[in-house]
């Protein structure tokens, strides 16, 4: 299963930090976070503090310009060493993330992880954002990790590593997205062909059904059936009557 809010809070809450909530009901979120009700306060109440905090920011609908401004306002409340869990309705693969990264960077924060979320009725992913004094490596994906700052002294080396991985991941993502689009087009074309084949098959069945029906109502068929029915002497006696009935009926034009 994906991570629960309680797992994320355990992993990312700085030791002894207050938890501030924005955009969601305090009591319900305290329950989901596995925290006592009095450990959770509205995010606005954390304004101006210098102690590290954990913010739980609940996105109500789609990401918009207004929600981006709200996110930046919340991130500006975070002192160094603080973290934020931004809960989104989208699955991880559907997050419209570019503006989210811009908001974080504008406020001097780093996106350190994105995790699938479970156990919440309307939210499927969590973006973990931190404010630190220096660049830090992303967190081990899906793993529990101790809260606190991983100090990387060689910042240039870390930056070079990020840049190198980004170059290859980006080009491969482009290739994979193009391949996925080609495959989607092929699937659409195959579906279109299957639909056309199904329609053609149905039309052919209808034509054959009509042909059989026409055949069964023809004089020749009825005469043949009458003759084929003569297997016993009694049947032979009834043959003239049956033949007369078959010949009296109006034969279809196609006979």
């Amino acid at each position: 299963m994906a991570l629960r809010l309680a797992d994320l809070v355990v992993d990312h809450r700085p030791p002894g930090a207050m938890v501030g909530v924005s955009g969601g009901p305090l009591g319900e979120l305290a329950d989901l976070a596995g925290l006592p009700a009095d450990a959770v306060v509205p995010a606005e109440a954390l304004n101006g503090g210098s102690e590290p905090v954990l913010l739980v920011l609940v996105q109500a609908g789609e990401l918009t310009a207004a929600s981006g401004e709200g996110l930046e306002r919340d991130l500006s409340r975070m002192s160094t060493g603080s973290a934020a869990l931004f809960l989104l309705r989208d699955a991880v693969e559907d997050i419209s993330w570019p503006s989210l990264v811009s908001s974080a960077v504008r406020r001097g924060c780093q996106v350190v992880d994105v995790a699938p979320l479970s156990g919440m009725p309307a939210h499927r992913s969590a973006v973990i954002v931190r404010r630190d004094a220096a660049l830090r490596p992303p967190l081990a994906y899906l793993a529990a990790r101790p809260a606190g700052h991983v100090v990387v002294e060689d910042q240039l080396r870390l930056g070079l590593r990020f840049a190198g991985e980004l170059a290859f991941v980006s080009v491969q993502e482009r290739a994979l997205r193009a391949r996925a689009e080609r495959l989607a087009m092929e699937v659409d074309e195959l579906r279109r062909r299957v639909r056309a084949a199904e329609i053609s098959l149905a039309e052919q069945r209808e034509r054959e059904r009509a042909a059989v029906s026409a055949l069964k109502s023809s004089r020749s068929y009825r005469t043949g059936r009458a003759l084929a029915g003569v297997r016993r002497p009694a049947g032979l006696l009834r043959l003239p009557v049956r033949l007369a009935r078959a010949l009296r009926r109006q034969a279809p034009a196609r006979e």
Partner: protein
Amino acid sequence: MSEQPGLLSSVGVREYWDGRHARVGDLRSGGNLAYDEATNGILYAVRLGRLLELMGFGAAPEAPLDVLDAGCGKGYFARGVAACGHRVDAIDASLSALEGAARRGSGPHWAQSTLADWRPTHLYDVVYCIDVLFHVVEREEWSRSVCNLADLVRVGGTLILTDVDVPSERVFGNYQVARPLRAYAEAVAPRGLVHVGSTPDGFRATDMMFHVFGRRG
């Protein structure tokens, strides 16, 4: 040629393992020959638990961890990790081991390769190599193997290696060379990995350690 008298060469070790995987039953072939099959079953289960603990208890099949099992043998750990929802590539130099692995079930992507020669087109969140590196007897090949595995770990990812806990290099029999933690740490440091911690595998009075390294640059 082996570096030390009495030790098998790399080719000799590979032939030994290929024969052992073909000859010896399920878990003993890659496990401990001193134990019977059932005890090896416990040994493997305990180690799988320790491995999952080190990898983390999160799983998300819709966006899984990318994992490399380096030296998978008959695939016990690879199948166990894949069953937990992770995407696993599993490599081994022994064809008979891989055939045995494929017979026992799907899930991981099996491939024949040495540790030093595996060249994927992507990085992994977790690379693990259990009970293999002390069988890589030649120092040069051991070094190339460890460095290659380290290079496959993405930034923020984890490298997990096991070896006997020894203060300095020590030879066991004719096909095992145990190396100390220091040797591993020195080998991976230039590749940007740092030692995060070591923990015993937890089975009986074992001196086998899981060494964990994380990429920091």
